[in-house]
C-alpha cells in the first residue's frame, strides 16, 4: 500500500491583498495583476476575485487540449484581456474591412444594426422599440442585464447558480473565461413567466456586448419559458483573435429554454466556447447552434438531463469554407430516468474547409426508459473538402432506445442534373441544394434571421465572400 501525503490547500502566490493595482497598465498578456485589476475595476465582491484568481491558476496549469482543432496559432501573450489601449476604442465605420462592409450592404442590414455590430455605437437607435421591450420585461419581473450588473444587483441569485454548471477547472478555456470574464448576459425568468419575444444581446444597456470573454448565465425558474438569441448572421468583425465564452443555463422544473446562436466571426478568430445546460424535472433545453464564421470553432453545447421527464434538443449547422475548421457537436447526458434527447447536425465543407462533428451520448445506470437519437449529415462540396465524425456513446442501462446515424457525401450528380434540366445553372443548383440541406436548422430561426441566413449562404456559395 502506498501512502502519499501532499499539500492540498493552496496559498495563492499572489494573495489578493498584495496585488498592487496601481501598477496595472494597459498592456497585453495575462497575470494575477491583470485579473485583480479587472475585478477591482468592476468593484466586485471578494468571492468573485478569489474565484477569478483560482481560475487563473487552473488556466496556467492546464495543458492545451491534445484533440480537436489546431490551436497552435493562439498567442496568449499577445492578447488584451480587458482594458484596451485608447486608440482601439475610437473605431468608426471606415475602419471596418471592405469585405465586411460589402456584405452588410448585400445583406441589407439596417444601418443602426450595422453600427452596433461594428462596435461603433453603443446604443440601439430605434429607441421606441428598444424601450418598450425593456418596459415589458420589467413588468414581468424578468431580470435581463449583463453579468456585471447581475452580480452587483442580484448577488444571491447570481452566487447560487454561477459556476455550478461549468466549474472553473472544467477545461482550459473555461478557466480562462472564469478568470477574465466580462460582459455577456444575465437572465432570470420568474416562475411561470413566459417571455414571448426572443431576448437578444443588443437589448442590454451595456456597450460590452461583443466581448471576447463573455459569460452568460440564464436561469429559468419553474414553469417559465425564454428564448435567447446570440450573435447574428452578418459577419462580425473582431480585432480580438481569441474568443473564449462560457454559457451556463439552468432550467428548473417544467421550464423551457431555447438558446439560438448564429456565429459568424471574421476569419481571424479562434472561437472556443463552453456551453452547458441543466434540465431538471420535466424541463426542456434546446440549443440551436449555427457556426458560419471564425477560423477555428470548438464548441459542444451540452445538456445534462438531471430530472425525470427532461428533454434535450440540439440542432446544429456548420459551414466551413477554405481556411476554416468548425469542430462542433453536442453532449447529452441522461442522468435521470424517462428522459429523451435528439441531436441533428448538418455540416457543409467547401474549398479546403473542414467540419468535424464531436458528440457524446451517455446514459447512466439509473436512467431507465431513455430515448436518445443522433443524426449527423455532412456534405463535401469540393475535392479538398474534409469532414470527420467522432460520436461517443456510453450506454449503461438496457432500458434504452438509442440510435445514431451519420453520413458523408457530396452533392448528388443526379440532383444537379435534375435541376439543370429545369433551366437552373449548376451554381444556383448547388446553392438550392445547400439551402435545402440546412433547412431543418433555418426553419427554427426567427424569420428575419432565416432570411438573412439564406442570403448569406447564397453569398458564400457564390464565392463572393469567404
Amino acid at each position, binding site marked *: 500500500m502506498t501512502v502519499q501525503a501532499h499539500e492540498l490547500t493552496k496559498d495563492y502566490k499572489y494573495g489578493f491583498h498584495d496585488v498592487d493595482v496601481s501598477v496595472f497598465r494597459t498592456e497585453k498578456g495575462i497575470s494575477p495583476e491583470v485579473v485583480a485589476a479587472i475585478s477591482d475595476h468592476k468593484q466586485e465582491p471578494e468571492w468573485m476575485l478569489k474565484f477569478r484568481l483560482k481560475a487563473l491558476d487552473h488556466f496556467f496549469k492546464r495543458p492545451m487540449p491534445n484533440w480537436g482543432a489546431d490551436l497552435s496559432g493562439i498567442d496568449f501573450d499577445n492578447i488584451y484581456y480587458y482594458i484596451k489601449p485608447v486608440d482601439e476604442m475610437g473605431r468608426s465605420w471606415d475602419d471596418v474591412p471592405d469585405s465586411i462592409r460589402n456584405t452588410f450592404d448585400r445583406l441589407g442590414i439596417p444601418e443602426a444594426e450595422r453600427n452596433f455590430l461594428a462596435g461603433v455605437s453603443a446604443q440601439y437607435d430605434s429607441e421606441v422599440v428598444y424601450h418598450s421591450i425593456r418596459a415589458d420585461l420589467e413588468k414581468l419581473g424578468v431580470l435581463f442585464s449583463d453579468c456585471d450588473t447581475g452580480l452587483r444587483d442580484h448577488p444571491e441569485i447570481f452566487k447560487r447558480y454561477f*459556476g455550478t454548471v461549468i466549474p472553473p477547472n472544467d477545461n482550459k478555456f473555461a478557466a480562462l473565461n472564469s478568470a477574465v470574464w466580462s460582459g455577456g448576459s444575465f437572465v432570470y425568468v420568474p416562475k411561470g413567466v413566459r417571455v414571448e419575444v426572443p431576448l437578444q444581446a443588443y437589448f442590454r444597456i451595456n456597450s460590452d456586448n461583443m466581448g471576447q470573454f463573455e459569460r452568460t448565465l440564464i436561469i429559468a425558474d419553474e414553469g417559465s419559458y425564454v428564448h435567447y438569441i446570440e450573435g447574428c448572421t452578418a459577419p462580425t468583425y473582431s480585432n480580438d483573435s481569441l474568443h473564449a465564452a462560457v454559457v451556463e443555463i439552468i432550467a428548473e422544473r417544467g421550464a423551457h429554454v431555447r438558446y439560438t446562436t448564429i456565429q459568424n466571426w471574421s476569419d481571424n478568430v479562434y472561437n472556443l466556447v463552453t456551453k452547458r445546460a441543466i434540465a431538471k424535472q420535466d424541463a426542456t433545453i434546446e440549443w440551436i447552434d449555427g457556426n458560419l464564421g471564425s477560423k477555428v470553432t470548438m464548441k459542444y453545447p451540452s445538456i445534462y438531463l438531471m430530472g425525470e421527464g427532461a428533454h434535450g434538443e440540439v440542432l446544429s449547422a456548420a459551414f466551413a469554407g477554405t481556411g476554416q475548421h468548425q469542430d462542433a457537436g453536442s453532449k447529452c447526458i441522461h442522468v435521470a430516468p424517462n428522459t429523451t434527447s435528439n441531436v441533428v447536425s448538418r455540416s457543409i465543407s467547401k474549398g479546403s474547409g473542414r467540419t468535424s462533428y464531436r458528440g457524446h451520448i451517455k446514459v447512466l445506470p439509473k436512467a431507465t426508459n431513455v430515448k436518445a437519437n443522433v443524426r449527423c449529415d455532412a456534405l463535401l462540396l469540393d475535392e479538398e473538402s474534409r469532414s470527420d465524425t467522432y460520436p461517443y456513446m456510453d450506454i449503461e442501462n438496457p432500458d434504452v432506445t438509442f440510435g445514431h446515424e451519420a453520413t458523408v457525401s457530396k452533392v448528388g450528380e443526379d440532383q444537379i442534373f435534375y435541376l439543370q434540366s429545369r433551366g437552373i445553372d449548376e451554381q444556383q443548383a448547388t446553392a438550392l441544394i445547400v439551402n435545402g440541406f440546412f433547412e431543418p436548422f433555418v426553419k427554427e430561426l426567427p424569420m428575419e434571421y432565416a432570411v438573412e441566413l439564406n442570403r448569406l449562404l447564397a453569398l458564400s456559395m457564390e464565392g463572393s465572400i469567404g
Partner: protein
Amino acid sequence: MVGEWVTVARVTDIPPGHAARVEIEELPIAIFNVEGELHCIDDTCSHQEASLSEGDLDVERCAIECPLHGSAFDLRTGEAVTLPAVEPVRVHRVEVSDGMIRVALSG
C-alpha cells in the same frame, strides 16, 4: 474485504490540509484531513479516470475538487455537488486508533 478495519497510515502522515492515496486490495481510496477531521472516499473520480487525492481541497464546503474537470464532491456524503460529475463516490469509514489511521471499506 468490505467492513473489515484495515490500518493504512500513521496519523502524522496526514496533517490538516493534506491528503493521502492508499490502495486496499487494488482499490484506490483517498483520505483527507479537513481541519483535524478525517474523511475517506474512493480516490477515482466518478466522472473520469482521475485521482481525487490530487485535487483542490475546499475547506469551507468540506469538499474536494477533482483536478481533471473541477467536479466537487462533498467529503461527508460523497455526493457530486458540481458538474460534470453526476454520480457520487463512495464514502468509507475512517477512524484513528493508537495513532494509526484505520479504514473500513463500504460495500
